[in-house]
């Protein structure tokens, strides 16, 4: 594991892979901001000040103020926390659900595997944004329901990956050896199957954080995710959209925040994909 990390680090060196390194810097920076946001935000993200409505960016308000006079910079900072948190919850939920279903299918085999895989296919058979919209509209608009809806549409990707991994581990000699010395049940599953199948899953999950943020903000943008006054980036863009042509900073700054965060994750993801798949190496 340490060697692997070392290899990845060597691969991500700024001289070798400037874009991947830029991604690491961006992610680190944004995660730090998300952690310390409440302490460094110059204003409360909720504080309404109608006397200061729609002020352009200035030293006092770096990103300007919105239609209720709230400081956009503070809202974007606190929004980083919300976006990263929801992305982690989404990935966690869909990864566990997908792994359980995929692993169960692979280990059970036979018709159970068939049924589970057909079910996965049915979930993958339509565009996930539309499906996530349907699910979160049925559950009712709120950030936690949007997170649930995205997880419900997302797990099949992990289920397929997990199934493939477990299938390749299933017939390895060391599993047979473990069985022969009487390892069984949960222990066999966790220490032999899961442990050896997990690393590609975790890598994939990390790469998906950017997409999770994108999808959450898209749902919020159509009004299904976070509700006002939550300073969620997608919601801020949606609410600020009507001011675009006269007060561009209201929707554009939260929008740029989404872009930069997703870009950071994609840059790193891209570098790691190049690393694991030598064919993609330029």
């Amino acid at each position, binding site marked *: 594991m340490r060697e692997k990390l070392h290899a990845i680090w060597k691969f991500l060196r700024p001289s070798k892979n400037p874009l991947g390194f830029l991604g690491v810097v961006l992610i680190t920076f944004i995660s730090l901001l998300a952690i310390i946001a409440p302490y460094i935000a110059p204003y409360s993200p909720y504080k309404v000040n109608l006397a200061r409505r729609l002020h352009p960016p200035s030293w006092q308000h770096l990103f300007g103020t919105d239609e209720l006079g709230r400081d956009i910079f503070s809202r974007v900072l606190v929004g980083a926390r919300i976006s990263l948190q929801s992305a982690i919850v989404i990935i966690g939920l869909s990864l566990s659900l997908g792994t359980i279903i995929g692993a169960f299918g692979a280990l059970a085999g036979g018709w159970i595997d068939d049924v589970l895989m057909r079910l996965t296919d049915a979930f993958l058979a339509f565009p996930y944004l539309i499906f996530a919209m349907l699910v979160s509209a049925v*559950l009712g608009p709120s950030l936690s329901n949007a997170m649930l809806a995205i997880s419900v549409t997302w797990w099949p990707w992990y289920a397929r990956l997990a199934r493939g991994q477990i299938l390749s581990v299933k017939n390895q000699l060391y599993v047979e050896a473990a069985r022969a010395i009487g390892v069984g049940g949960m222990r066999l599953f966790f220490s032999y199957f899961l442990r050896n199948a997990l690393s590609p899953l975790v890598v994939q999950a990390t790469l998906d954080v950017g997409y999770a943020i994108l999808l959450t903000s*898209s749902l919020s943008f159509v009004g299904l995710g976070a509700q006002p006054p939550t300073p969620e980036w997608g919601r801020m863009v949606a609410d600020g959209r009507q001011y675009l042509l006269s007060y561009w900073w209201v929707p554009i700054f939260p929008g740029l925040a989404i872009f930069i965060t997703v870009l950071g994750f994609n840059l790193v993801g891209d570098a790691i994909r190049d690393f694991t798949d030598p064919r993609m190496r*330029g």
Partner: protein
Amino acid sequence: MTYLLRRLGYIVLTLWGLTLITFILTRVVPGDPARTAAGPQARQEQIEQVRKMYGLDKPLWIQYGIYMRNLIRGDFGKSLWSKRPVIEDLKAYFIPTMELGLAAGLMFFCLGVPLGILSAVYRNRLLDHFLRFFSLVGVSFPVFILGLVLQLVFYKLLGWFPANGRIDPFIGPPRNITGFYVLDSLLAGNWRSLLSSLHHLFLPAVTLAYGSLAVVSRMTRASLLEVLSQDYVRTARAKGLVERAVLLKHALRNALIPILTITGLQIGSLLGGVVLVEIIFSWPGLGTYAYTAVTVLDVNAIMAITIVTGILYAGINLIVDLLYTVVDPRIRYR
């Protein structure tokens, strides 16, 4: 032929799974579907009436039977918001979305592949680095923000393109033949409406296409680079063929399969992105319809849209799979 039949059977099976999922979602998950269908302000007796009308007082499996029977007839129920049958709404909004989607699809495929080729030919040179960064930005730029930025720059600052609608209201739509404004204008020989509709189509299509363009050009680059290192390419070069012939005849044809696969997947993501783009550019299509449906929680309409996009997506993937056999005659489906 048998392959086609089996594939169609498989699609039907998948769509059936889809109806099951949506049925469970809309009937079992919310506390009282009759209340949902009747709307938030409905009185108790109205709710009871709706319950009777939709057969919601019957057992679940009978309800599913009724639901399926209606679906097969193309009856998705009534839209809560427009008060019309959902199928009528879908018909009205389908063509504008197709027009936008086709424009974006053409754009990303016809630009993405050449850009990918350029990137591969000039690999690790300045142009390649620039194109790679350009495509990574494309993958990371949320469509709804790209749309806003483009509106700000090309409408507000430069004034080059309109920000809303399908055509200049003073020119008005061309005579309705197919419903596609661009095509209808061409058929009618109406140059003014042709120009205006292309002018209105440009920004939303670019917004929708950018992300997919990025993905397709990256895939083209990767796939082409892999093929270019093969022996038969070296042989072709050794024979003294011009580089262009090697590239386009020998390499590109063999690199096409993954490019096609990713194109099919990208059309799927266009179907999702179109919702966001239509909202931003006030494009009167399925996306705007979906958005309105979502804001008033019109479950019948949302469900219909999900099923229609599911059918479209399945159809596109089938076409892509069939195209494989055209591109690579070694592939035969049985």
